[in-house]
C-alpha cells in the first residue's frame, strides 16, 4: 500500500514539476506570471489526442507534435501580446491580466471544438505492460511518465547550467538591460523561453492526460493553481525550487488524500502556499529580494 502510494506520488510529482518548470522559467526570464499556462497544458493533451486519433501515429511522436504545437502557441502569444506590452513598458501586472485573457480564450475554444465531455486516449496506444515486484504493481505507463519527465527536466538543466545559451538566459533573468548591453539577443531569447515553457507545459498536459486518461477543457484550471503553489513554494523563478516543490506537492497531495481525506488533498496545496507566503514570501529556496524603490 505504502509503496503503491509512493509510486503514485512520484508520478504526480514529476508532472507537477514539469508543469511548474515552464511556469517558473517564464517568470524568471520574462518576469510575467503566465496564467495561460494551465490552458496550454490542456491544449497539449487535446493536441496529442487529436494526432493519435487522426493520424494514427505512435505515442512518442504524438507527444513531440503536441509539444511543438504548444510551443508555437506560446511563441505566438509572446510575439503578438507580450512583446508589445514590453515595448510599452507596461506595469508588470498588465501582462498577467493579458495571459488570463489568453487562458479564457483557449479554454473556450477547446470547449467549442471538442465539447465539454471527458475524452480518452484509445486503449491500444497506451503502453500496456505491468511489472509486479512483491506486492507493488508498476505500470509501464507510470514508468514512462516518470522517465519522460526526468529526461525533459535533465535536458533543461544541462542547457541552463552548462551551455552558452543557458548562461545568456540566466544573465537576462538577472537583468535584461545589462544582458542587452552585453550583446545578448534578449528579444530572441524571450521568444525561445516562451516556446520552451509552453512546450514543457504541453508535455505535462499529455502526461497527465495519459496517467488519468481523462481529458476535459477545464483540466488546466486546477493544475494552474497547483503550479502557482509550487513556484511560490520553491521560490518564483527558481528552477531547482520548481522541481523540488513539484515533487513535494505530489507527495503531500497523494499522502493527505490517502491518509486524511480526499477533499483535503486539494486544500493542502493552498494551505501550504498561504503559509509559505506569510512566513517566507521569497519561497523556500528563493533569495530574499531587496525592495526596489
Amino acid at each position, binding site marked *: 500500500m505504502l509503496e503503491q502510494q509512493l509510486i503514485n506520488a512520484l508520478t504526480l510529482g514529476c508532472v507537477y514539476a514539469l508543469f511548474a518548470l515552464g511556469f517558473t522559467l517564464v517568470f524568471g526570464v520574462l518576469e510575467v506570471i503566465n496564467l495561460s499556462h494551465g490552458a496550454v497544458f490542456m491544449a497539449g493533451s487535446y493536441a496529442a489526442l487529436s494526432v493519435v486519433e487522426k493520424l494514427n501515429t505512435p505515442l512518442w511522436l504524438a507527444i513531440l507534435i503536441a509539444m511543438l504545437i504548444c510551443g508555437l502557441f506560446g511563441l505566438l502569444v509572446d510575439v503578438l501580446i507580450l512583446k508589445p506590452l514590453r515595448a510599452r513598458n*507596461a506595469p*508588470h501586472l498588465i501582462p498577467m491580466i493579458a495571459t488570463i485573457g489568453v487562458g*479564457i480564450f483557449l479554454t*473556450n475554444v477547446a470547449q*467549442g471544438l471538442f465539447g465539454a465531455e471527458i475524452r480518452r486516449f484509445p486503449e491500444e496506444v497506451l503502453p500496456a505492460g505491468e511489472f509486479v515486484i512483491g506486492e507493488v504493481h508498476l505500470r509501464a505507463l507510470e514508468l514512462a511518465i516518470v522517465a519522460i519527465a526526468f529526461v525533459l527536466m535533465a535536458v533543461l538543466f544541462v542547457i541552463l547550467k552548462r551551455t552558452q545559451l543557458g548562461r545568456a538566459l540566466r544573465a537576462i533573468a538577472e537583468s535584461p538591460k545589462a544582458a542587452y548591453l552585453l550583446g545578448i539577443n534578449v528579444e530572441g531569447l524571450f521568444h525561445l523561453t516562451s516556446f520552451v515553457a509552453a512546450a514543457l507545459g504541453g508535455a505535462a498536459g499529455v502526461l497527465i492526460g495519459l496517467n488519468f486518461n481523462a481529458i476535459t477543457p477545464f483540466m488546466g484550471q486546477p493544475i494552474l493553481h497547483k503550479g502557482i503553489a509550487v513556484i511560490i513554494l520553491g521560490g518564483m523563478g527558481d528552477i531547482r525550487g520548481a522541481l523540488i516543490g513539484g515533487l513535494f506537492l505530489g507527495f503531500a497531495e497523494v499522502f493527505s488524500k490517502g491518509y486524511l481525506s480526499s477533499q483535503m488533498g486539494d486544500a493542502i496545496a*493552498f494551505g501550504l502556499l498561504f503559509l509559505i*507566503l506569510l512566513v517566507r514570501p521569497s519561497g523556500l529556496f528563493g533569495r530574499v529580494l531587496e525592495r526596489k524603490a
Partner: protein
Amino acid sequence: MEWLDTFWSTYNTLIYTLGVHALLALSIWLTLSCGLLSMANAAFMGIGAYVAALLTLHFETPFPLVLAAAALVPAIVALIIAIPVLRLSGVYLAMATLAFGEVVRIVILNLDITGGPEGLNGIPQSTQGWHIALILAATIYGLFRMKRSRVGRALEAIREDEVAARLMGIDVDRHKLFVFTLGAVIAGIAGGLNAHFTFFISPREYGFENAVDILTMAVLGGTGTLIGPMLGSSILTLLPELLRFLNDYRGAVNGLILILVVLFLPKGLWDPQRFKGWFRPQTREGGVQ
C-alpha cells in the same frame, strides 16, 4: 403598459445582476485605486452570500440585519487576513489572495452547514430592485466623496509611488487596510443581495473564474474613474445575452476582449483624457496637461 410587465418579468434577474456586478466592480476598483491587485473579492462575496443565506434559512433574521451581517463577517475576515497578506505587494499579493480564495471555496465545498457541492437551495427572494439601487447609489456617492477627499488623494499617492507617499507622512499600511476591508464589505453586501434573488447559491460561483471576471470588469472599463468599472461590469453582464448566437464560443469573446483592451486601451474604455483628445485633435501628442 403590458409590454413593460413582460419585459420586467423576463429581464428582472438580469437587471438585478447588473447592479450586483457594478458593486463588485467598484469593490475591486477600491483596492486597485491604491495599486493593490487583490483577487479575494469573489471569496468575500461568497462569504457574504453564505452568511446571509444561512441567517435567512435557519434563523429567519430580518433582511436588513442579514445584509449587515453579510457586510460585517467579510470585513472581519478581511481584517484578519490583511495582517499577513498586506505585507506582500505586486504579484505576491495577487497570488496570496488567489490562494485565500481557493481555500475559502474548498472550505465551503466541504462544510456540512453550507450544503457542500450542492450549495444552498430555496433562499427566499427578499431582494427588491430598490434595495440594490439604494445600496449602489450610496456606494457610488460614498466612493465619489472619498475620491475627492484627503483619503482619496492619499490612495492616489500610494498608487503612484508607495515610498514617496510614505515619506510624505501618509500612513500607507492603514490606508491599504482601509481599502482592503471596505472592498470586502462591498463585495459581501453584493453577495448577500445576490443570494436573495437567485434562489440558489453554490461554491462554484465564488471561485477563480469569478475573481477573474470581477477583475476583467474593472480593467475593461478602466480604473481611472468610478464610471469605468461600472461601464465594464454592465458590458460584461449584457454581452453574453447579446452573443447568444455564438453558443459554445461565447466565453472566448470575453478572453479576446480582455486581451484587446490590455493591448490597445491600456486605460480601459472610459478614459476622460482620451475623450478630451477627440474634441481637440490638433494639440500636440503628450503635450502639457
